[in-house]
């Protein structure tokens, strides 16, 4: 028998010690998973569990803020699992786009966590709301920060299984019905994504995004990249609820607890858009340009379906579900317009705005139900008389959702309309503006009926509670702040879009010695 020979692996490993700042890339995910497990063990102590979860979400926001600061200052950073050299080790590569999305998602989750103190009672906590919330955040952060396509699939599944747990919290008939449709369609979408990953690996022989981006140029002549791009487009459009694969969203998003709806509306569809932008804009840009007429049509149809659906709904939560869809249409329009005219930066800005806004809108719906006793436009009324402050907050959010100045929804729409006019896609600009107009009518009617109309029945006015008022006010402050002072965020989303269109810095961070 031959003596075992020792193999010198140093050529395949990163031998230099990992700089301490690079741990930030993996910390959001590690933090969420660890805390989720700890919270699961603390099931018997609902109060302690809730406060631990909220401080954990605050820590997550701090970590993501530090990560964003580092990425803004130093450019993309990469951390490789097990020190194996990329593309063999799974890489977490954080660029400006990912860091911005991760930070915003942490803020949104923190707000929703505080709101959950009022919305999720003892039994919901016992069934694991807070552990599932942390695991959902692990999935969302992982999807935003990873630099590996298969790893992205794994994070999709992590957030999907946590979202299944969250959507059936309460186990009412309605929820089971909504959850079934949500679960089946989202599972099919992730399976489509996995098919894409399989073909991608067969074509490229690598799963590392930086490696794929640098190899795509040479393989374009021989490999079926258009097929791949179309598969990814279908899978991510289904996740993002774009027309014609959007019908699961209004069927499901009004069924869970309102704070769960708020989280889903803020985070999940945006993860789909994020993945779409990452894959189509950074990895397969030529194919994106080829597909852009199709994406533009889908975007226009999505905007119109969302706006018309919002007009036809009597349940506020379903109305907001259609507003989510209309927002997805705007982001898709940005993807269709591409980087040269600022379409991508518009989509990035819109995604950030939409995460904050949609969460705030669903929290508003919860607050309307708490004060008015229901979700139906036909039964509500008299909220202005009850609380002027809450009415003002809601009005700000409604105007932002319509894309009216001076709130944060205005700027991305300006960018998108300008980008489409620059490219002579006047019809897309018309649809974006027309969709905004229809949404304004829907929100105007909502405001008229729910706030201005005298209360149909003399209800018992419920006093303001800080647990619901604080997160709502904080999110509204963000919406107002970025509406009045958009320069910073505008510059950030422009450089995020530039980093996607020309991923040299991203590639350099993964392969410091130059591409192999």
């Amino acid at each position, binding site marked *: 028998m031959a003596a075992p020979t020792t193999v010198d692996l140093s050529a395949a490993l990163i031998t230099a010690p990992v700089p301490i700042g690079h741990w930030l890339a993996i910390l959001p995910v590690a933090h969420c998973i660890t805390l989720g497990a700890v919270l699961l063990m603390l099931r018997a102590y609902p109060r302690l569990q809730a406060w631990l979860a909220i401080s954990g979400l605050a820590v997550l926001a701090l970590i993501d803020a530090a990560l964003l600061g580092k990425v803004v200052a130093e450019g993309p950073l990469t951390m490789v699992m097990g020190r194996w050299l990329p593309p063999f080790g799974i890489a977490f590569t954080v660029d400006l786009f990912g860091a911005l999305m991760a930070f915003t998602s942490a803020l949104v989750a923190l707000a929703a966590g505080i709101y959950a103190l009022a919305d999720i009672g003892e039994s919901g906590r016992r069934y694991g709301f807070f552990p599932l919330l942390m695991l959902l955040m692990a999935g969302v952060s992982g999807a935003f920060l990873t630099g590996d396509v298969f790893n992205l699939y794994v994070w999709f599944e992590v957030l999907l299984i946590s979202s299944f747990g969250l959507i059936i919290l309460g186990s009412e008939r309605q929820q089971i019905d909504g959850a079934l449709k949500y679960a089946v369609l989202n599972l099919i979408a992730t399976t489509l994504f996995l098919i894409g990953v399989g073909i991608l*690996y067969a074509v490229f022989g690598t799963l590392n995004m930086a490696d794929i981006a640098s190899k795509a140029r040479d393989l374009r002549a021989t490999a079926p990249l258009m097929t791949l791009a179309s598969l990814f487009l279908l899978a991510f459009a289904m996740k993002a609820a774009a027309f014609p694969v959007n019908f699961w969203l209004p069927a499901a998003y009004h069924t869970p607890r309102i704070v769960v709806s708020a989280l889903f509306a803020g985070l999940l569809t945006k993860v789909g858009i994020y993945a779409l932008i990452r894959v189509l804009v950074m990895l397969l840009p030529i194919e994106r340009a080829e597909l852009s007429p199709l994406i533009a049509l889908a975007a226009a149809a999505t905007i119109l379906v969302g706006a018309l659906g919002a007009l036809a709904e009597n349940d506020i939560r379903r109305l907001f579900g259609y507003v989510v869809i209309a927002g997805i249409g705007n982001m898709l329009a940005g993807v269709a317009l591409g980087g040269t005219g600022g379409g991508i930066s518009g989509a990035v800005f819109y995604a950030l705005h939409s995460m904050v806004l949609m969460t705030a809108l669903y929290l508003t719906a919860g607050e309307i139900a708490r004060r008015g006793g229901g979700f139906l436009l036909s039964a509500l009324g008299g909220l202005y008389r009850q609380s002027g402050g809450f009415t003002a907050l809601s009005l700000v959010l409604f105007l932002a959702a319509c894309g009216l100045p001076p709130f944060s929804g205005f700027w991305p729409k300006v960018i998108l309309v300008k980008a489409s006019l620059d490219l002579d896609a006047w019809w897309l600009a018309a649809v974006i503006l027309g969709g905004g107009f229809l949404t304004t009518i829907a929100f105007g009617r909502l405001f008229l009926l729910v706030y201005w109309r005298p209360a149909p029945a003399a209800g018992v006015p419920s006093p303001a509670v800080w647990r619901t008022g604080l997160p709502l006010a904080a999110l509204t402050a963000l919406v107002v702040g970025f509406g009045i002072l958009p320069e910073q965020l505008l510059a950030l989303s422009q450089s995020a879009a530039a980093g996607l269109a020309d991923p040299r810095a991203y590639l350099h961070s993964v392969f410091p010695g130059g591409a192999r």
Partner: protein
Amino acid sequence: MMEPLLAILVGLFFAAAIYLMLSKFTIRIMLGIAILGNSVNLLLFTSGRLTREVPPIIPANLESLPAGAANPLPQALILTAIVISFSFLAFLLVLTYRAYQDLGTDDTSEMHAAEPDDRPLPPLGY
């Protein structure tokens, strides 16, 4: 060669899965999802080359696998995908059964608990 045969098999699996998922009965949809998960696993498996002739071991004097060896990474990917699709299927089966109990039907065109047919339009004025 095994690859074309398996490619055809994967195609058949996909066809069967899509046929079943187009049904309106939840249990058939679940069977379709089960087959879909397995066909994707087979697809991944095939994408890494199927051969036993060349062992996937890097010889001492080389830096990469010898030409024609099966790539072992897809097999690792399948392991992950199998675990995930199995756990999802388990969850979905329980959810389907629960839906059958609560809604009293396995026909999706009769599942209207969340979206009742007679829901009113919003009021036009007051």
